[in-house]
């Protein structure tokens, strides 16, 4: 199998020198990488049962074919275990999907990250974190799978900060932004089932996303109370173009409070959709919308998203703490839409 690898080969004295070589070549995200030796790359390909020349996706906006070999090399560099490779592959299929529309999220000054929400059995098998420190440190799968995707964007798709990645601020999720849904404890159907998959399938939902915003409600013991606080915070967070989606991540305490009142994910979506509309008057007064305030602007409203279904509700985060969060999607619905891809094994 090594003979079929066609990438250019470089030599280094040892791993330490190879790590420096990768920095010198501009192939890293700023952290050291695992040197992608042919043996490591072959193990990555074998775990996903992929031939090196197999095209994972074609990114039309960059006129680039993303092959299994290049994905495997970058996954090795990111520190992935070989068994993570099918999840990385599903994510790469997502960023190449015309609905996700690579150029905007890969380039925009608004600085989108690639949020990956993993559902199904593979999340447990790979120990993809769905609990404490959900977005934070401590889990190899969470940090390396997302890192592999970003390295592919950098090294294969040309999204290099300062050139074709023009994020004004970027955000830490651009290093890695991977979570699993806490299906074991969630009282609700998982996200991938809501998006058309079976519970026993594994799938990744790929969302072009801004950073997570945490909110706090330790006061209320009702669904309506907690969600009222959330809606108040969310309402101010949209931009004028309208987000394509919002991801709402409900952690343990809030999840139990909301579900304890008998609320379904659909009820949560509907409530948030109705309670996050901004009046035109507010948008004009806060200089988010052009023009003077007209009398009818006080009652004319603009929703955050086109439909309640554009709010994805995910059960995840630690059991303790009256905190949850929401994540605004990047851009508008015509610019990028979330896609869900099956993890094929």
């Amino acid at each position: 199998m090594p003979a079929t690898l066609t990438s250019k080969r470089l030599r280094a004295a040892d791993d330490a020198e190879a790590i420096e070589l990768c920095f010198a070549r501009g192939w890293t995200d700023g952290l050291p990488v695992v040197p992608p030796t042919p043996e490591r790359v072959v193990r990555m390909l074998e775990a996903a049962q992929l031939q090196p020349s197999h095209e994972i996706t074609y990114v039309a906006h960059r006129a680039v074919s993303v092959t299994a070999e290049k994905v495997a090399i970058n996954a090795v560099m990111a520190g992935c275990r070989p068994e993570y490779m099918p999840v990385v592959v599903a994510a790469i299929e997502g960023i190449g999907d015309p609905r996700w529309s690579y150029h905007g999220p890969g380039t925009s000054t608004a600085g989108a990250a690639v949020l990956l929400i993993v559902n199904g059995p593979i999340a447990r098998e790979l120990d993809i974190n769905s609990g404490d420190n959900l977005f934070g440190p401590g889990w190899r799968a969470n940090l390396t799978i997302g890192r592999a995707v970003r390295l592919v964007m950098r090294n294969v798709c040309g999204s290099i900060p300062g050139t074709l990645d023009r994020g004004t601020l970027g955000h830490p999720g651009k290093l890695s932004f991977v979570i699993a849904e806490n299906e074991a404890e969630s009282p609700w159907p998982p996200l991938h089932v809501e998006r058309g998959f079976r519970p026993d399938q594994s799938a990744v939902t790929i969302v072009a996303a801004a950073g997570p915003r945490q909110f706090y409600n330790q006061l209320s013991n009702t669904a309506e109370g907690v969600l009222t606080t959330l809606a108040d915070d969310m309402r101010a967070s949209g931009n004028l173009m309208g987000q394509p989606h919002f991801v709402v991540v409900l952690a343990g305490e809030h999840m139990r409070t909301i579900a304890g009142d008998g609320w379904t994910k659909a009820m949560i979506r509907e409530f948030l959709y109705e309670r996050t509309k901004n009046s035109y008057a507010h948008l004009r007064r806060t200089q988010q919308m052009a023009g003077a305030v007209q009398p009818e602007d006080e009652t004319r409203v603009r929703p955050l998203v086109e439909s309640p279904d554009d709010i994805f509700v995910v059960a995840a985060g630690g059991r303790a703490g009256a905190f949850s969060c929401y994540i605004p999607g990047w851009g508008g619905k015509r610019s990028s839409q979330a896609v869900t891809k099956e993890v094929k094994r």
Partner: protein
Amino acid sequence: MIEILDPTVETTTQPIKFVARPGSLAGKRIGLVENTKFNSDRLLQKIGDILVAEHGAADARLWRKHNASVPAHDEIVQEIKATCDVMVAGIGD
């Protein structure tokens, strides 16, 4: 000694042919492609008006992309190819 594999895509050459630039804009039909960002239509139309008034272009017609994040769609590319001699595109941001 160890070997590592290049994670980047080796560039394959792709010939791109450019139409020769016209020596004069006199009588030329100008196509303008705006990217939907605020005021980009006004800016481009202003440029088009100048090309007509000061450089003798026949006319200047504006097309609109679906949005700033995607390439111009094929329908307007074909229309522009069929009806324009010169085009101006720009990114408003």
